[in-house]
């Protein structure tokens, strides 16, 4: 099982959402995808997409305006 990192620091709408989806499409079942970013709305919207895709949200963390979202495919 691989751990895939997606860095969307400084990116704005819709890039964090789109890059997350691209990484999830490439990931194999069981892989972990970790997305890092600063766009505030994406912190709420990536979990919404995870729910819509029926995947597992492992956790959301934020520190100093930088959030980190972990997803299991």
């Amino acid at each position, binding site marked *: 099982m691989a751990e895939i990192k997606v860095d969307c620091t400084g990116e704005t*709408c819709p*890039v964090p959402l*789109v890059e997350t*989806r691209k990484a999830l499409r490439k990931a194999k079942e069981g892989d972990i995808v970790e997305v890092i970013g600063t766009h505030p709305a994406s912190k709420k919207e990536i979990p919404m997409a995870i729910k*819509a*895709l029926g995947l597992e949200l492992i956790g959301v963390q934020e520190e100093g305006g930088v959030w980190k979202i972990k997803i299991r495919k």
Partner: protein
Amino acid sequence: MAGKATIIVHSGDMDKVYSALIIANGALAMGMEASLFFTFWGLQRLKKGELEKGPLSKMNMLGLGKWMVKRRMKKAGAVSLEKLLQDFHELGGKILACDMTMQIMGMKKEDLRDDLISDYCAVGTYIDEAKESTITLFI
């Protein structure tokens, strides 16, 4: 896959093409299917080298307004229309080209970004796509 978004891209204005591509990419990212039906002025943007060439829908001021908005977009970290179109294609979005527009405007397949276009079609295809869509927009 939960639902589908079908968007008619009638306008070739830069800001409106941005709206269409952002919404369509958002739909794909949220696990929906998405189709973009390019017609009339919108289809002009699928000509080779024309994607970023549309004017601003308001306050274009012979391109000065567009230049100012583009500068601000760059500062805000907004990506190019080209990246949005490539992402849309990569995520499995469907790009449809209106064949009547091609006839009217004298456009040939060779003039268009044929590698990205899934089909050349008419209103029947749009209705067929839209009737099973939960989101449909005219931009």
